[in-house]
């Protein structure tokens, strides 16, 4: 059969291919938005930095090690003991070489593959969920209570979490086994914030430039153009003036030479970090501020646009879509009202079912009563009570203080990570485990009682009874 040539079609095909190549090359070389090259959408935890491909793909020609380095740059210090119960160091021992051959847990990307949403099993995790089997297949021999349980259930609410198994270990379950759903009033309440009490132990606090002593309006060092009555009043009425934090402390953040910099009307999060470094660190690790994370900035080498509700995947209030997130988005300069930051700021943007259901919920009513002075401080439950809990924190090797964890992801998934830093301040452990395992209860913001029961405590009790019986029998036999 004779073949025909279509020279014009060929020319068109070649021309359009070349045009396509040029356009893509231009985007690749100069474009800020390179999403056209993404093989698939990023997971919930990383989509915020999807405009910064090189935050993870640091070197176009590097292999898996480059990606691993990128993971560790942001997550590395979370992957060590005591935060991680399966730290890499455990698997470097050659006795585990056969295990690594089956499932290479030395590499983050073995279990956390990005750009493949169809593989996601939740929380950025992409392996089959029965992976515990590889090392713990004989678990039922040592824990008869686990006989017959499928390995796909290890990670069910209230049970095991590969990286941090510390949240709910067996002895913790036993210690809290008989608690009522709601703890007695005397045992309820949040730990108090103690920043003011520990200032003198914080080595990097700028006490030399700003001695801890109350300031009056006459001391304020802002230029006249930057002043207003409202600003003066707000500053004077807050801890900043009371603790000697003058206008320049925030508006003239020091450069590398520690000298005050040029005046800026709108200081960014770095200005806050001068005193509130741990809070800012949490903010830049969480979904709100990760675009501003130092670890991202170091490799991306250009400032990323701040996160806005419009960029979020959760439902947001339509009129808040374009407010870029910074410390003052929630903490409103110059009052820095932490009560407003704990509820109003959140609900100003978040419009998902759980957030909307908060208003009028039992937790919200307690919060209103606390704000009205009808209940003592720390007895109300704000959004922040659970999502930005007050946790014990070691700023250095010799002290511990209470820190508001500004990384809301730190306790979000799996949600049993929230039980100790949040729920257990007021609720019994058994109730807390069940409540967080009930999606309907979470959606309606805890109006009612859990409709599910997780057997963690029952299993711990059964195992304890077995062990005690064995011990008793051996003592009698001797």
């Amino acid at each position, binding site marked *: 059969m004779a073949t025909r040539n279509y020279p014009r079609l060929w020319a068109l095909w070649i021309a359009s291919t070349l045009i396509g190549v040029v356009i893509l090359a231009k985007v690749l070389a100069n474009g800020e938005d390179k999403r056209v090259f993404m093989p698939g959408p990023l997971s919930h935890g990383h989509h915020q930095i999807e405009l910064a491909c090189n935050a993870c793909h640091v070197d176009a020609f590097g292999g898996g090690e480059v990606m691993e380095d990128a993971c560790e740059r942001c997550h590395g210090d979370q992957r060590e003991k005591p935060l991680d119960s399966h730290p890499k160091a455990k698997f*470097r021992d*050659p006795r585990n*070489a056969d295990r690594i051959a089956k499932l290479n847990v030395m590499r983050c990307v073995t279990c956390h593959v990005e750009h493949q949403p169809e593989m996601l099993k939740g929380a950025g995790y992409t392996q089959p969920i029965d992976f515990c089997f590889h090392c713990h297949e004989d678990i039922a021999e040592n824990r008869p209570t686990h006989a017959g349980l499928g390995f796909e259930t290890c990670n069910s609410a209230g049970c095991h979490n590969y990286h941090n198994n510390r949240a709910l270990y067996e002895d*913790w379950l036993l210690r809290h086994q008989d608690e009522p759903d709601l703890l007695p009033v005397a045992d309820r309440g949040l730990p108090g914030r103690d920043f003011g009490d520990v200032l003198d132990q914080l080595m990097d606090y700028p006490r030399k430039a700003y001695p801890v002593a109350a300031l009056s309006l006459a001391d304020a060092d802002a230029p006249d153009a930057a002043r207003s009555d409202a600003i003066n009043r707000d500053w004077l009425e807050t801890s900043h003036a009371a603790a000697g934090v003058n206008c320049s402390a925030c508006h003239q953040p020091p450069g590398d030479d520690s000298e005050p910099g040029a005046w800026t009307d709108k200081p960014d999060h770095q200005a806050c970090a001068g005193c509130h470094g741990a809070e800012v660190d949490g903010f830049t690790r969480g979904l709100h501020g990760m675009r501003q994370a130092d670890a991202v900035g170091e490799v991306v080498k250009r400032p990323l646009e701040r996160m806005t509700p419009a960029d979020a995947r959760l439902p947001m209030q339509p009129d808040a879509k374009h407010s870029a997130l910074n410390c003052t988005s929630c903490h409103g300069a110059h009052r820095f009202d932490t009560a407003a930051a704990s509820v109003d700021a959140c609900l100003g943007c978040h419009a998902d079912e759980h957030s909307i259901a908060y208003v009028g919920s039992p937790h919200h009513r307690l919060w209103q009563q606390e704000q009205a002075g009808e209940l003592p401080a720390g007895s109300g439950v704000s959004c922040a009570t659970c999502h930005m809990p007050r946790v014990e924190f070691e700023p250095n090797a010799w002290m511990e203080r209470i820190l508001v964890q500004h990384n809301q992801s730190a306790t979000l998934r799996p949600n049993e990570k929230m039980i100790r830093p949040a729920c257990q301040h007021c609720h019994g452990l058994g109730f807390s485990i069940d409540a967080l395992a009930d999606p309907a209860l979470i959606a309606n913001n805890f109006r009612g009682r859990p409709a599910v029961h997780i057997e963690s405590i029952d299993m711990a009790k059964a195992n304890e009874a077995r062990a005690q019986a064995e011990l008793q029998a051996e003592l009698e036999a001797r």
Partner: protein
Amino acid sequence: MKTLHKLSLTAAVAAVAAGTFAVADMPEEAAEPSITPRAMADALHLVMDSDRTVYTRKIVNRLAAKDKVITASEHYDDEKALVLPAQMFRYGSEMVAERAEEKPDVNFSYSLQSLWPVNKQNAPRTDAEKEGLQYVADHKGENYYTVETLGDIKYFTAVYPDVAVAPVCVSCHNEHKDSPKRDFEIGDVMGGVVIRIPMEG
């Protein structure tokens, strides 16, 4: 037996001898291979075992059992207690693994294992571990040395007996609900320390 990597040996020996990885103005002789894998493992074990004994007797047994001023607990953070001697040993071993990664010339690993482990992940896994732990349990006062291949790498593997050196060792293991053996006595071999040194070839 094939010779070990020269640098790994000298660096590790220097570390054992000086207690530090920083070596200033090292004389040439110090770079000569002059130690067998067995001697290196024996030296490493001597340090580990002595530190472990001191911690168990002078810290845990003295403060928790004798003076009763603090407890020792697996959940030391929540209970504001001393770390258990086995945890002390394991954390050290994990820190060595972590730090050695930065020093490719220094290469060895060690772990505490037992035929009767409280934590089942510390039961022997390789044939050498199984034979070695059984050997040191059956032959009191003797060590076990062998060569094994793991993940395509050949190792000199030494197993040393781990002996109950204080009453707290015995009481804790005999009473622990996950302990598979409850009749230990002072002086018994309760497990073993396994040290591995990679060999060339």
